[in-house]
């Protein structure tokens, strides 16, 4: 089980489709506890990612990740841009020049998670996309091979759990108690990313 370049591009493509479809939903979530731009920003970013990576010939998965990172970094802006950008940059660094098997993928997600935490000065449980990435990372470490359903399930649960969490980072933190009862928009977009990954894995089986 090795992640192929083609699969990686598919992963981005599926992520993009989900995000475009849910652009308004993401924006509505961000309007409730943020500033209402997450859907707009992240959809612009992944659209640019697809413009960049589709049809290109890549040797390694890491090269795709690098282009994704640079594109998100320079096209998204806001909090999500540098955070997603950092995540993919870490993936690209960990994957660099290698075949991405289960163990390396798991390592990459862990490195990405740590990169995001460090950039955002944030930790699990603060109602940010870190919640989804850390749940996925934990689970990957527990398992030994790719299982789309398990990953999807894990990401979904973590995403849904942000609803009852009190925000202490990001714009939602200004709301304090009033942030409870709303999903974190960044966690929802991260869920789409892992849901898309799960679909790619399932198809590959």
């Amino acid at each position, binding site marked *: 089980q090795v992640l192929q370049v083609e699969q990686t591009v598919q992963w981005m493509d599926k992520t993009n489709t989900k995000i475009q479809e849910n652009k308004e939903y993401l924006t509505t979530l961000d*309007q409730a506890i943020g500033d209402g731009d997450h859907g707009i920003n992240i959809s612009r970013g992944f659209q640019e990612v697809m413009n960049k990576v589709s049809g290109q010939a890549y040797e390694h998965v890491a090269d795709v990740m690098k282009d994704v990172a640079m594109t998100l970094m320079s096209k998204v802006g806001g909090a999500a841009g540098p955070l997603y950008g950092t995540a993919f940059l870490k993936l690209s660094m960990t994957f660099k020049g290698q075949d991405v098997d289960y163990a390396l993928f798991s390592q990459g997600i862990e490195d990405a998670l740590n990169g995001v935490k460090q950039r955002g000065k944030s930790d699990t449980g603060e109602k940010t996309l870190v919640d989804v990435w850390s749940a996925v990372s934990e689970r990957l470490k527990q398992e030994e091979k790719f299982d789309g359903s398990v990953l999807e399930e894990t990401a979904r649960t973590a995403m849904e759990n942000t609803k009852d969490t009190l925000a202490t980072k990001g714009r939602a933190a200004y709301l304090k108690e009033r942030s409870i009862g709303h999903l974190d928009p960044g966690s929802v977009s991260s869920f789409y990313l892992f849901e898309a990954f799960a679909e790619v894995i399932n198809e590959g089986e």
Partner: protein
Amino acid sequence: MKKIINDPDKVVQDMIKGFVAAYPNDVKQLPNTTGIVRKEAPFSNKVGLVSGGGSGHEPAHAGYVGQGLLDAAVAGEVFTSPTPDQLIEAIKAVDGGAGVFLIIKNYTGDILNFEMAAELAEAEGIEVDKVVVNDDVAVEDSSFTSGRRGIAGTVFVHKIAGAKAEQGASLQDVKQTAQKVVANVRSMGVALSSCTVPAAGKPSFELADDEMEIGIGIHGEPGIERKQIGSADDIAAELTKKILEDNKLTKNDDVAVMVNGLGSTPEMELYIVNGKVQELLAEKGINVYKTFVGEYMTSLEMAGCSVTFLKLDHELKELLDAESNAPAFRAK
């Protein structure tokens, strides 16, 4: 959504084009970015000042580019911090050898993008320092969270750090002065209606016909409390009280006052609010050195206003008064 625009996804681009067209002798656009830079920049041996942030706060930030103020302002998408690749271009464009100073409002997005740009700049050998503005007393100041938001008080940081840099101060001194402003400036706002992000196409929030949101953020972030709309005097009193509690101003202190419109509130109403604010300050024996009433840091077409007090010492007064010449802030 009723707006005079061409394409919701191109508002920033179109705005930048129209801005440069308005002041072609004073500013230029950084190629392939939404950064606005003083025409003659960089100025050798002057600290370069860069600010920026999401669009939708006009005249912030490009309106503050000019002599005695900013050297560059970078506009992000609406309510979205600009990206590091844009910011680094601005930093390079204003680096005259004395280093570059960044004025950042305290939002995660702004901080992350500016920080990454600063790292890139340092990698290129440009000395960079920064200040983070967090004047909004509506938000609790806590080290466990991202802390307070930066709002209209940022304009005073632009003006005073800008004047300091124009005097030829070192990067270190510009920073010290900017920090003094940040330490002494406090603001709070109220919204009567929402704004609409063009690409979102619908209002960011809803307020009932008789409601206002106290402590609103300039991106439409919710405030402290939603309640029945009060009189101008009540609103002025509530904002003033909250700020004074926090700022600990006392008798004989000198302050600058800003009553800032958030977008669609007529200037008439800003002056009505100012009348009460000044009355309350006078009652407390606080001296108002200078007052600014108008739209300085807006939130698209939001109705509402914010009040800002900046405690002044001799240095800050002098710098606040110093000559400046930017579209949104001309002093002489």
